[in-house]
């Protein structure tokens, strides 16, 4: 079955492709595959992939409206034949120290979900997540889908500052804060590793479509990996 999508020009150098109105894994796989193909093209200035959409900004020295539309249509129809294949996704393991010492909302989350803290850790770390979108701040990956038992609405009052490395959950998603920033998600742990490397070509540890797993680590391991205990 041909992939159905809605294509529109937002202006003379940007177009926007919508692949349906619902979040699902196949759509996300296709969007990630398309975004990856565009990354190598010097005529594409940038793209922003999200759950069901792809925003493409092109360089008018390389493409005009006719050629970009044709090019994207072709790329999308080539995804159709790939649909059965498994797109190779990187699997990235993020070590997490789950403890109230670095996770101000861990106890509250356990209470709100009606489970023990150990169960929160188990439920959060046994799922393999998928990076559906990257944004909000550089390297901030929206990972889904969180186990239903852990799904809570965002905090009613966001924190003005969430410490870098904080691992948080909200609704069906989880994420790691790559840098200190405001945030309204529930913090259940902290990772000692860096999600942003300003010296690296790719900048962000995580890319669209990556598979991500969280691995519980002890206080000693956390410290050995350089984890800090500062609270804000």
């Amino acid at each position, binding site marked *: 079955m041909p992939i159905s999508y809605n294509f529109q020009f937002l202006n003379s150098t940007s177009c926007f492709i919508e692949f349906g109105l619902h979040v699902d894994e196949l759509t996300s796989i296709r969007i990630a595959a398309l975004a990856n193909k565009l990354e190598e093209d010097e005529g594409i200035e*940038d793209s922003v992939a*999200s759950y069901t959409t792809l925003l493409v900004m092109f360089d008018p020295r390389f493409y005009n409206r006719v050629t970009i539309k044709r090019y994207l249509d072709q790329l999308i129809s080539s995804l159709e034949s790939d649909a059965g294949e498994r797109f190779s996704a990187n699997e990235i393991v993020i070590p997490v120290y789950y403890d109230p010492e670095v996770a101000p909302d861990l106890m509250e989350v356990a209470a709100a979900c009606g489970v023990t803290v150990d169960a929160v850790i188990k439920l959060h770390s046994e799922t393999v997540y998928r990076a559906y979108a990257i*944004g909000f701040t*550089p390297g901030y990956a929206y990972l889904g889908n969180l186990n239903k038992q852990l799904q809570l609405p965002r905090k009613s009052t966001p924190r003005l500052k969430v410490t870098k490395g904080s691992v948080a959950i909200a609704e069906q998603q989880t994420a790691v804060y790559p840098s200190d920033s405001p945030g309204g998600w529930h913090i259940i742990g902290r990772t000692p590793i860096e999600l942003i490397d300003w010296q690296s070509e790719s900048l962000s540890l995580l890319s669209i479509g990556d598979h991500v797993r969280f691995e519980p680590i002890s206080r000693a391991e956390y410290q050995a990996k350089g984890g800090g205990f500062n609270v804000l």
Partner: protein
Amino acid sequence: MSFKVVSPGILTLIQDLGRKGFQRVGLSSGGAMDEYAFRLGNALLRNKANAAQLEITYGMLTLEVRESTSAALCGADLGATLNGKSILPWQTYALKRGDLLAFAQPKYGLRAYLAVAGGLQCDETLGSVSTVMREHVGGLDGKGEKLKKGDVLKYQPMDDHFQNRVPRHAIPDYSLTEIPLVLGYQYQQFSRIELAHFLSSTYSVSKHFDRMGYRLEGRAIRYDGEGIISEGIAYGSVQVPNDGQPIVLLRDRQTIGGYPKIGCITVLGGALLSQKVAGDRVSFAAITVEEDEQERLLFGHKLKSV
């Protein structure tokens, strides 16, 4: 071989045409807010289109010239003076060692662009010098800071001055209040009445305006469509939050958002809006993608005529 910053001004930033290829990982592009003025400045000096310049917002900047060069001043009239004598935008000036170049306060517009022959020399961060303060990227030290007193801005010294000015027909008319916009995103999910109100109303710029976006005040626009799954935000997106007061998202915008959007203003529209301040009035005129393309091509011709 440099300017010394005697007084850094309110907000003076090193900018180019923005950082390409990193919105995919959530980094704002940054870049000159008024792309027309920026491009004209580099064209006046025969610089590369992307050569680094100063974006001077509001003014209060004083630079000491350490070595001769040609400079181009474009964009807003911020009451600039060279050794105490008034100078006007849209032309080049010979700068000599010991000169003082000062910017007072806005007389007309908000952001001025200062280009020097060959461009300011500044190390790129991720392929661009554009300063995005919120994300601590770009600028002189690469950490996204605005200019500070004592900063040294390097350039290649040049004794041959190149006198040049932007022809009248190519100077953007900042008195225009009509901002061209291409309808897009969820515009079909706004009722026809709401769309008509949006396009026929006058909005004023609120006090919340910066490089990220301009929040407007006026008739609230109601959105009755479905909830939005977070999606990529293109330059100039007009976002309608729950209170119905439109926000136009510009160079330092976040890359992803979940509010309904009615379309995108054009690069010319963004240049005009970037020169507005709180209380200024604007309205929106719907144009087609073809018209946006013509606008871009027309500007390309104007650049060549400089």
